[in-house]
């Protein structure tokens, strides 16, 4: 990744829960960088720490070790003003389009709200125009959608509203946590295409969190595989998926539904699920480079 300076970077960030005697690392020594106009996918199963990474970026958690760098500057426990500026630069799209919108408010209200908070200069007419522009951007008809309530929209339409809401404050980074997992396959692609378009048109840096590796391949230039709080393998998406080096990545890939492979042709990895899980969960500070943009943290036994 030898392009422009990253917009947002995590530098050896750890998040620890539990007491001193029995610490649980929800994130361990996590480092990655988000660049303008690029998508980084974070894949892993539930409990692997994907959402913890998102929460660290959204400042819902403070890192216990390491730091976040925003445009190169460390982000400490800064003052309210800086936090607000950060929040308008870094926005999130949530998994559940049914619970992430307020059922008691219209779509227009949902989109005007961030504008009221973050762009105080606008008058009512300007705000309305801004909402219309946002809805057009996410390919919804403002005249039809603005007065509606969330329950009157489909899941895909609601997810478009969530994206419009995130875009309302002109962010530079969008964190999308499983944005399509609750949608039907036929509408998923539309949302993924929309995220892709926004990335290209607005130069956004996207962190796409998912357990669906096929969609990660569709949207992301780079990919990271997370297990037990550690990023075990990362690099260019094609390199990681075509030439996976970490046993856990291979296990995960062998379990992904793939119509080209009958179930009876099980990979060797499936016989050693427990071993791979146990070994991969051990802390590992060594990093091995596979190719120019492809790295793993080898399992301890492989040393």
């Amino acid at each position, binding site marked *: 990744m030898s392009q422009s300076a990253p917009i947002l970077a995590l530098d050896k960030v750890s998040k620890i829960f539990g007491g001193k005697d029995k610490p649980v690392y929800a994130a361990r020594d996590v480092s990655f960088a988000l660049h303008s106009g690029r998508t980084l996918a974070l894949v892993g199963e539930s409990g692997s720490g994907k959402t913890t990474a998102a929460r660290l970026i959204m400042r819902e958690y403070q890192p216990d070790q390491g730091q976040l760098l925003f445009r190169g500057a460390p982000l400490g426990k800064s003052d309210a003003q800086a936090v607000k500026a950060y929040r308008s630069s870094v926005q999130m799209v949530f998994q559940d389009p049914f619970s992430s919108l307020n059922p008691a408010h219209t779509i227009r209200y949902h989109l005007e709200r961030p504008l009221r908070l973050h762009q105080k200069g606008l008058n009512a007419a300007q705000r309305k125009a801004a909402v219309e522009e946002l809805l057009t951007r996410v390919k919804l008809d403002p005249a039809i959608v603005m007065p509606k309530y969330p329950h009157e929209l489909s899941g895909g339409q609601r997810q478009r509203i969530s994206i419009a809401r995130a875009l309302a404050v002109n962010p530079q980074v969008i964190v999308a946590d499983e944005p399509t997992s609750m949608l*039907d*396959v036929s509408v998923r*692609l539309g949302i993924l295409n929309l995220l892709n378009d926004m990335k290209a048109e607005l130069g956004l840096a996207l962190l796409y969190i998912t357990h669906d590796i096929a969609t990660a*391949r569709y949207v992301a230039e780079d990919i990271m595989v997370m297990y037990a709080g550690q990023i075990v393998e990362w690099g260019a998406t094609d390199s990681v*998926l075509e030439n996976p080096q970490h046993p856990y990545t291979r296990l995960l890939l062998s*379990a992904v*539904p*793939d119509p080209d*492979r009958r179930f009876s042709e099980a990979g060797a990895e499936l016989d050693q*699920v427990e071993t791979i899980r146990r070994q991969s969960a051990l802390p590992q500070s060594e990093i091995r480079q596979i190719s120019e943009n492809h790295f793993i943290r080898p399992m301890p036994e492989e040393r």
Partner: protein
Amino acid sequence: MTTPVLSVRNLTIDYIGAEKDFSAVKNVSFDIQPGELFGLAGESGCGKSTIAFAVSRLHRPPALIRKGSQILVDGRDVLTLNDEELRSFRWREVAMVFQSAMNSLNPVLTIEDQFYDVLRTHTDITRAQARERAAELLKLVDISPDRLSAYPHQCSGGMRQRIVIAICLALNPKLLIMDEPTTALDVVVQREILQRIDLLRKQLGFAVLFITHDLSLMVQVSDRIGIMLEGNLVEVNDAQTIYRSPQHDYTKRLWASMPKLHGAQITREAKS
């Protein structure tokens, strides 16, 4: 010609509304042969779960099965069974694993008691025999019999799902209905469970009606697949044909909207 385990004929199910009825299943017919794994795929609201519920007579008003519909299990029409017949039919002939099956275990009973509950209701079995049978069934799904004394909350989601499957197999049903059995689980666990099911059905000879929205997964495990769209069964074919040369336009569109893991990527104009 063997008698199909399940033979659905002209099944029409409406949800009765105050103003107008919603037609959920429209004149659907298909067969499942003994030992076959038949997949029913489609998007939310296409009627696939409605069919699953109807086959085990678990549908409730406002769902109404229209006259002329037939659901034959081993040649016997399920829709004409009385309450007593229905009680012995469920579990013994057809057992069902629900989407949230791992949450359908009783939280205040041990695993052993949950097996005993089913076995005692349907057979004349002693406590000791039930315990032995339960241990045997747990081994089938690769769980140690020590777990019999555990409560559901002490088991992982994947383990609970396997326990439910073991309970479903307790009375050797001819047909196991699985409605999105692994949707709430991770892919690695999902794969372990489905491989186990595949092995068991070959070993024990039961047929499976497998319902999911994940078409890739379905092609991997099923013998034949039916594709549903808005209550209609639009295509039924063997799994490889559904994947390699889908006949119906909707099946083609479904494939065209699914990003691929390997090889040439789908084009973006597929559907938006």
